[in-house]
């Protein structure tokens, strides 16, 4: 409990690690996650450190592992992300892993390359067959036209070309050439245009689409291709055409000159494709085998390499001692865990078989240690709420343990509804019961994770809402009549205040509690259910909830102020107790504490009988400041005197708060300067931490207290600046005094939100459910089903989720601002231990995929 209240006591320790066993020791510490290492060579660059080569080796292995993982994933083999937790491999075993990995990489690379080559071959052959099949149609088309031309098998329009007719071409030695192949469908337009432009029309392009999708070997995406056939004149143009084909990445295949040749080629291709298919299947099977084998151990390897790399990073933080025989590491460690630390080091030394043991040595320090607050699954959620505001300073009072109760309570005050609370609690209970379910735990849905992490908070919020719902007597905006109402209507008739005619004559009638038998005492728990029928229900509840908010607020704030005494006492600033805490508390209680007193006094003293004479507290409270109590009747004898007294005390505490601490400190420094002041400090430097405390205690008794002695002990060297101190205190005073007013007003949000919640659920009932319930035909039953669905959906989305979030936020604010600023500075640094369990644990997070 004390650890939760203040955090662990930390100490700086030096680890002397024998160079032979340092690796094992660090590995052992990493498994335990006890200590935070400090960088002992901050001036050395990352690549100039000692173990940089080992880290490079780890990175090389990571690269291979990444490659393996990608290949495994591509082959659709599932990766076993088991619960194995292998320890970091010994340096001598690393070589074996490395070799194994490299062998796998080479093998895999070869097989994949082979496979790709085969696939490419296959693609080419398929393309060739497609081309032959389709280009046959081109030729057939032209041969159909052939009879029209008399003796030339060439194309008609060339004849009309006066400049270059066929005979002159023939004389020049030009001959007809064909280029055929495949080009991507998207490029055919540009390809055709360029062909036309460059060759000035001396080519003929015919093309047709392949109806199958062919896999592109580079991108592995199915793409559509187009088979084309270019007929051209002359070699010059042929050259150009070839270049253009290259430029558009066409796959060009030889064009068979005759039909027989074509048939032969097609036949040959068919057998080759069949052969290739068998070879490809074999290769794929083999590849799969290799990958299967690799996938079994790949997860273990990934973890091992991660751990190894982490260890070398830590070893890089250590420095060598003078003899170069052992490594020195500096760590922050919880004092309680030092025996565990010792055992871990012994274990590490034993494992590596070192003759000289590694050992721990506590060293005194002036640095502020990091803050460690050990949490369990219940407290961690609340600790996170506090840490989101600021990590507590070292050994400061931690608000989290109080937050565990106050947070759900303040939430529930705003969210008070029995029905909604039950739904919320059941939802959270389900999460709590199934918290070990891997599917719930390891989901990557961030919104879900937020809820899941806060399942205990939600559970408590739900339970508290059930309680406040009972108090407000609200269940989906309806009241429960469990114990029977304390009001009796028939008594009004018995006393003959009402006649039968009154009921038919008036829309509204008022029950009079002063008539005997009408009011039989208060309802045992919470609000009387009869109020749910009353038209002045809202007025009644508003008055009640407003006063309740102020009372809760003042209690909450006073509690915060009282908690600050723990800090003052722990940090040995006794003067703060009188000069800060006392005036603060007096100011708060004299003004707002008195307000709470008046509220309760009025509740107790004025009954139904004399309620007409009950005074307004507001008027009394205002008069208290104006110091004029004569106009109104006093609540109790001596009220004016007491009020003047309280105001005077409150006003007087302001200058004490403002000037007390700076003046006292100034007096300590200058008026009370004694040579003995620094004596203790000089001595302490040579002694250990424990003695430091004793020394300080002794100094305190001697009366030569170090004014601002905190655990860090650094303040003593600080220059004391009166103006600075005064300014800080002035800011604090202004903030506190104004804060008391505004914070009290801020607690009224408890009332506002609970009112909003109640009204909203009532509106939902009146506008949705009541409409369906009022239909008294048979159809109404059918109508009720969809309407209830609507009601349920709206209840969950608006009232539970939206209203819940808004109440959560307001509760958060009340804790962060109104409660914590009374005592919590939150300027600490979080303790982040070196622990393997904090390394990312799924493949995606490893950054390897």
């Amino acid at each position: 409990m004390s650890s939760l209240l203040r955090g662990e006591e930390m100490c700086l320790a030096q680890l002397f690690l024998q160079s032979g066993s340092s690796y094992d020791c660090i590995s052992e510490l990493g498994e335990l996650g006890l200590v935070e290492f400090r960088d002992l060579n901050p001036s050395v660059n990352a690549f100039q450190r000692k173990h940089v080569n080992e880290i490079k080796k780890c990175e090389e292995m990571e690269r291979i592992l990444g490659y393996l993982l990608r290949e495994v994933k591509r082959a659709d083999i599932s990766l076993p992300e088991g619960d194995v937790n292998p320890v970091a491999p010994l340096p001598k075993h690393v070589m074996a892993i490395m070799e194994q990995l490299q062998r796998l990489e080479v093998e895999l690379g070869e097989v994949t390359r082979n496979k790709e080559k085969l696939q490419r071959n296959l693609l080419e052959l398929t393309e060739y067959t497609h081309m032959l099949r389709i280009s046959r149609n081109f030729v057939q088309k032209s041969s159909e036209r052939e009879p029209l031309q008399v003796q030339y098998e060439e194309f008609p329009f060339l004849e009309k070309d006066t400049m270059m007719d066929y005979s002159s071409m023939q004389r020049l030695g030009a001959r007809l050439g064909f280029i055929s192949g495949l080009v991507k469908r998207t490029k055919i337009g540009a390809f055709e245009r360029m062909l036309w432009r460059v060759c000035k029309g001396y080519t003929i392009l015919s093309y047709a689409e392949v109806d199958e999708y062919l896999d592109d070997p580079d991108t592995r995406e199915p793409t559509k291709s187009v088979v084309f056939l270019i007929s051209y004149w002359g070699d010059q143009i042929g050259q150009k055409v070839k270049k253009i084909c290259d430029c558009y990445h066409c796959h060009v295949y030889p064009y068979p000159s005759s039909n027989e040749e074509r048939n032969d080629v097609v036949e040959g291709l068919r057998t080759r494709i069949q052969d290739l298919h068998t070879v490809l299947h074999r290769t794929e099977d083999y590849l799969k085998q290799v990958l299967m084998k690799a996938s079994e151990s790949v997860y273990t390897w990934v973890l091992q390499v991660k751990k190894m790399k982490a260890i070398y990073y830590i070893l890089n933080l250590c420095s060598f001692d003078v003899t170069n025989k052992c490594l020195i590491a500096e760590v922050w460690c919880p004092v309680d865990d030092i025996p565990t630390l010792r055992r871990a080091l012994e274990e590490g030394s034993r494992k590596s078989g070192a003759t000289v043991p590694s050992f721990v040595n506590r060293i005194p320090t002036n640095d502020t240690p990091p803050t460690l607050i050990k949490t369990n699954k219940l407290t961690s959620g609340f600790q996170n709420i506090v840490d989101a505001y600021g990590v507590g300073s070292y050994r400061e009072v931690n608000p989290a343990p109080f937050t565990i109760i106050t947070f759900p309570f303040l939430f529930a005050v705003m969210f008070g509804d029995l029905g909604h609370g039950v739904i919320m609690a059941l939802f959270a209970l389900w999460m709590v019961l199934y918290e070990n379910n891997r599917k719930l735990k390891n989901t990557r849905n961030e919104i879900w994770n937020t809820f899941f992490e806060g399942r205990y908070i939600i559970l408590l919020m739900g339970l508290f809402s059930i309680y406040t719902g009972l108090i407000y007597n609200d269940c989906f905006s309806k009241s429960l009549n469990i114990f029977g109402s304390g009001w009796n209507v028939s008594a009004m008739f018995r006393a003959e205040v009402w006649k039968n005619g009154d009921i038919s004559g008036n829309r509204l009638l008022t029950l009079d509690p002063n008539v005997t038998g009408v009011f039989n005492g208060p309802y045992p728990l919470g609000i009387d259910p009869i109020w749910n029928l009353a038209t002045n229900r809202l007025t009644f509840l508003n008055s009640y909830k407003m006063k309740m908010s102020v009372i809760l607020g003042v209690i909450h704030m006073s509690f915060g102020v009282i908690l600050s005494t723990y800090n003052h006492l722990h940090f040995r600033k006794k003067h703060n107790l009188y000069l800060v805490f006392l005036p603060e508390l007096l100011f708060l209680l004299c003004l707002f504490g008195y307000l709470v007193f008046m509220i309760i006094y009025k509740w107790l003293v004025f009954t139904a009988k004399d309620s007409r004479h009950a005074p307004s507290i507001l008027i009394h409270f205002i008069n208290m400041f104006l110091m004029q109590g004569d106009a109104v009747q006093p609540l109790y004898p001596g009220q004016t005197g007491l009020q003047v007294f309280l105001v005077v005390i409150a006003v007087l505490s302001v200058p004490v708060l403002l000037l007390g601490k700076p003046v006292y400190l100034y007096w300590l420094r200058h008026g009370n300067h004694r040579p003995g002041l620094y004596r203790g400090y000089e001595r302490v430097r040579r002694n250990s931490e424990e003695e430091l405390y004793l020394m300080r205690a002794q100094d305190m008794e001697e009366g030569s207290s170090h004014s601002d002695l905190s655990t860090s002990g650094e303040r003593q060297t600080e220059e004391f600046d009166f103006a600075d101190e005064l300014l800080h205190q002035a800011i604090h005073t202004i903030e506190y005094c104004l804060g008391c007013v505004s914070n009290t007003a801020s607690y009224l949000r408890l009332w506002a939100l609970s009112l909003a919640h109640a009204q909203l659920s009532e509106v939902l009932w009146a506008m949705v459910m009541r409409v369906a319930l009022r239909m008294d035909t048979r159809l109404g039953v059918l109508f009720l089903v969809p309407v209830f669905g609507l009601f349920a959906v709206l209840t969950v989305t608006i009232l539970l989720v939206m209203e819940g979030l808004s109440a959560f936020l307001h509760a958060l604010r009340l804790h962060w601002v109104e409660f914590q600023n009374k005592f919590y500075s939150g300027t600490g640094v979080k303790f982040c231990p070196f622990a393997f369990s904090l390394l990312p644990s799924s493949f995606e997070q490893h950054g390897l995929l």
Partner: protein
Amino acid sequence: MTELSFNVDHGYLEGLVRGLKAGILTRSDYHNLAQCDTLEDIKLHLQCTDYGKMLSSSEEDLTVSLVDSKLRENLVTEFSCLRSNALPPLSTFLDYITYSYMIDNVVMLITGALKQRDVAELLPRCHPLGAFDQMAAVGIARTPTELYSAILVDTPLAQFFQDAVSESNLDEMEAEILRNKLFKAYLESFHSFCKNMGGATKDIMCPVLEFEADRRAFIITVNSFGTDLSRADRIALYPSCGNLYPEGLRLLGRAEDHGQVKEVADCYPAYKIIFDDPEPGSGFKTLEDRFFEQEVKLNTLAFLQQFHFGVFYSYIKLKEQENRNIVWIAECVTQRQKSKIHNYIPIFQGTEQ
């Protein structure tokens, strides 16, 4: 008014590019890089930056050219992400950025073809930002007219060809002239595009492009000394959208040697510092480097304003400069020229750490 609706279309990309800009190496990164002894060290250090595992995922041996191509790949990936998400007019703007690389590619392919190099060998050396379908066919053309009418007429470069069409045979000199003519047309077109955009885009981009135009004018003049480029030809190559236009360009056209160029530059305070002789104590920097330095300075200014396209241009240019810096450092490291390693041009120096 355009600011009101800017974020509707381009807000995401502007946010993206500003995020990417945060990944530009800082002074301390350069400081660490300059201390490296091997390329492995550089790789290790780049892992801590936004480049991440860029270099470690390859199996090949680490060489400077590998570093260069990986850096370029990285830039192209980022650019294509921006381009594929862009809506007009931003998409047009981004296309304009690629045109300059296209021009360079075309000229490189022409000169390569003149030297009888194989296209397959040349293609990998083209800048991927300026890649286009018809690229491989550039070598077919014999004259600029043919180049235009047969090959480039489909590409966006066609609009820059108005002045460049000529029947003279393509030789190396002609290719270089073609490049400058294309660049002149390109810069003028880009300049007027930005001017028409108005608003902050105009305020940011026009100075940058004007500087670019002036730089080209200076470089053309300096490079033309000692060649048989006539004065009139030279004047025809100057882009007319810069600060030098018209008086400075007329003077530059008359210049005969480096001294006269310097005299022209002295009339313009911005360029005076570039041409000033370095103080004896400080390290010597080439004219090119000093122009780069000035360019970086102008480009960093783009990030001071919001709701404009200048950030995209500036980011690409700054990233390019960063790539040049890393390659320079890598070269120095491999060639053991530690003394020259600090000649890189830092980006965002001192302003943010």
